[in-house]
């Protein structure tokens, strides 16, 4: 028994059909805490350098943290990871719902999949009973349809994660869906499951999660919930969830519009949180143990469609709404549904479709490429069709399914300048030419241009929207704090939005595990993990360095159009200055590579060999 942990690692060799359960090593717990830490260490140890992410030798990992499933607000989080099919570097996606707690209740901290099946399958983890079943007619079905079928077959009390046709077709922006609308969206992990012919993972757990000091955990847990309940923003957050951000982002000119040509979408009030609530939302839908219930479960209906969908979340509204210029929340919700059912990430999906629309409008692609579809910003039908074409790899969809980087390199004609990605991952929903700390967050994020590890827009508002001084320091602080939540297996939002202090999470960790780490020590482990994810890029990408942290040219060559950030730009020398500061403060060289001294100071001597 390991307090705070499921206590076991489940390994499945799909080629051999071999299932093994082993105790979670104490050293792994002590040195890497959980989830994210477990994933990156396991990848370094067990994935051979240079492995093709979609080959049988590749690993798919999903891992909970020490607080997952415990009496702590929003403890329903899991990290999934592997070598990313879209970037070739460190791939990781965060997701919620009820699967994470269920896995821990079944007594597992982590599942590691290796090998590949000959025939499509799904995996059932029913407490100690683990088996691989024939997928049969599930293969080819949409993510939501497959989940519904599996629930009918196995029982309502199973928690199920599925891939859609996109994952089956090895689309590099394929996601994993669970609980009818929560996704492990980013870095194309759905394609890894597809390559292994795993349609779904279904879990039921009934064990008690052991806790070191249960009375102590109840006390700190109650305090954390009370902090949420009494926060003035609590009710607002419950009502709108992340969609509340739409109005704000437009006011400050940070809402990606028409493939990041602008930071303000003139129709934003039609797709805002209040409008969404009024037009489509049925109920609030929460992840496990969460008081905030960001999830909005909706029904979107017109003469052309009538579907249920969870969302849209802010990111989806930003990337499919603003970035493709769709001015109807119903259309955005329907596109959201299509992405979910076909199994593609709405962030990368929205971004790549916006890229394709711009290519079409500039004459770089035409109707011969799109199978007769006229792409146009603001045209919802074109967006719907493109989601399907990407997932099914039809026409230009086959190229777009490889991601914006590969697509733009193939299409050429200057399209690389507006393929909005960094490290090969499409940028998520914050326009940041006038938010340098946010831009640096994207540039240096350890999975590519994503906002999860660091989100710094409010810091830019407070300290100057064009100044680069002092920004790197803040970004580094955020890159240690925010991923700590991902490592502990909890959601960061009660901390961000309800001001539940980090010290409470550290206390909950101590009560749960009996391991006496201070907040500072936990953040120290977070820094170690950050350096280790960086070293995974160094190991896997020949010539990895500063160039990979650079944004697309649109950021420093093109002025923003419209709204309060009209005319905004971040000059190239400022972009370089951000990186100079960042590397220096990180103890990395000016090519962005950790120095041997830095690695040694973090206890990562064993990875110095990968510096080559």
């Amino acid at each position, binding site marked *: 028994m390991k307090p705070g942990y499921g206590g076991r690692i489940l390994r499945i060799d799909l080629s051999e059909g071999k299932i093994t359960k082993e105790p979670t090593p104490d050293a792994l717990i002590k040195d890497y805490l959980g989830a994210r830490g477990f994933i990156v260490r396991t990848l370094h140890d067990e994935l051979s350098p240079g492995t093709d992410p979609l080959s049988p030798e590749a690993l798919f990992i999903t891992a909970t943290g020490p607080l997952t*499933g*415990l*009496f702590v607000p929003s403890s329903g989080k899991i990290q999934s990871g592997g070598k990313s099919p879209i970037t070739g570097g460190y791939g990781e996606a965060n997701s919620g719902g*009820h699967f994470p*707690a269920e896995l821990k*209740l079944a007594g597992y901290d982590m599942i590691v999949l290796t090998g590949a099946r000959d025939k499509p399958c799904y995996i059932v983890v029913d407490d100690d009973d683990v088996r691989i079943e024939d997928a049969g007619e599930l293969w080819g079905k949409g993510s*939501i349809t497959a989940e*519904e079928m599996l629930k009918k077959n196995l029982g*309502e009390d199973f928690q199920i994660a599925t891939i859609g046709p996109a994952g089956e077709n090895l689309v590099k922006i394929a996601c994993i869906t669970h*609980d*009818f609308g929560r996704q492990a969206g980013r870095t194309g992990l759905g394609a890894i499951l597809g390559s292994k012919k795993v349609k779904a993972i279904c879990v039921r*757990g*009934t*064990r*008690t*999660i*052991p*806790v070191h000091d*249960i*009375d102590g*955990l*109840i006390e700190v847990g*109650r305090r954390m*919930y009370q902090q*949420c*309940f009494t926060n003035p923003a609590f009710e607002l957050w*419950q009502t709108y969830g992340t969609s509340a951000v739409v109005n704000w982002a437009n006011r400050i000119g940070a809402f990606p519009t028409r493939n990041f040509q602008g930071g303000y979408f003139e129709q934003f009030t039609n797709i805002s949180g209040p409008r969404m609530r009024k037009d489509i939302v*049925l*109920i*609030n*839908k*929460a*992840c*496990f*143990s*969460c*008081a*905030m*219930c960001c*999830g909005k*479960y909706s*029904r979107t209906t017109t003469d052309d469609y009538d579907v*249920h969908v969870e969302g849209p979340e802010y990111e989806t509204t930003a990337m499919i709404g603003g970035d493709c210029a769709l001015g109807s929340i119903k259309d955005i919700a329907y596109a959201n549904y299509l992405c979910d059912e076909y199994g593609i990430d709405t962030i990368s999906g929205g971004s790549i479709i916006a890229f394709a629309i711009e290519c079409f409008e500039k004459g770089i692609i035409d109707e011969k490429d799109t199978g007769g579809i006229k792409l146009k910003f603001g045209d919802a039908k074109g967006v719907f069709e493109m989601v399907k074409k990407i997932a099914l790899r039809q026409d230009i969809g086959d190229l777009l399914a490889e991601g914006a980087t590969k697509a733009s390199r193939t299409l050429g004609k200057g399209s690389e300048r507006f393929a909005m990605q960094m490290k090969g991952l499409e940028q998520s929903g914050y326009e940041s030419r006038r938010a340098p700390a946010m831009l640096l967050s994207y540039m240096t994020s350890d999975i590519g241009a994503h906002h999860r590890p660091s989100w710094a827009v409010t810091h830019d508002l407070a300290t100057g929207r064009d100044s680069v001084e002092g920004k790197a320091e803040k970004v580094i602080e955020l890159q240690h704090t925010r991923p700590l939540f991902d490592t502990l297996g909890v959601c960061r939002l009660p901390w961000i939005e309800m001001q539940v202090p980090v010290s409470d999470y550290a206390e909950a960790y101590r009560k749960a595990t009996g391991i006496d780490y201070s907040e500072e020590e936990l953040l120290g482990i977070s820094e170690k993990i950050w350096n280790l994810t960086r070293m995974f890029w160094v190991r896997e990408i020949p010539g990895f360095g500063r160039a990979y942290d650079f944004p697309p040219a649109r950021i420093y060559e093109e002025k923003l159009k419209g709204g309060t950030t009209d005319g905004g730009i971040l000059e190239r020398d400022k972009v370089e200055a951000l990186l100079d500061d960042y590397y220096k403060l990180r103890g990395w060289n000016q090519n962005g590579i950790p120095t041997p001294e830095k690695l040694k100071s973090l206890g990562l001597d064993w990875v110095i060999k990968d510096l080559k």
Partner: protein
Amino acid sequence: MLIGRDETRCTGCRTCQLACALCHFKENNPKKSAIGIMGEFPAPGKYHISLCTQCEKCIDVCPEGAISNVKGIIKIDPDKCTYCLACVDACPFGAIFTHRDFKIPFICDVCGECVNICPTKALYWKE
């Protein structure tokens, strides 16, 4: 006093189940809760809450006379209960629960921990 349910407010977060099991068994295990939460998705998209209403049907069907209402709380006498599960089958609300760790079923004892923790007031005190 009884605990009321407003299913339209339920978000399916299951914090009530955590609090329930912590209160009664001092265990972090929502599967040891006397509250049932079941989703109906993708359509129509809602949650159902199963909770004892003290209808006393279980008292009527128990062949051992092991179940009684003691001052407004439904109790199962562990010495009389044979784990035949007649009460579980008969409960019109699906509100009598079992777990492989226990030799008798368990029912809400109206302690109110779920009401205290429910973030959306889907569970509330009812006269």
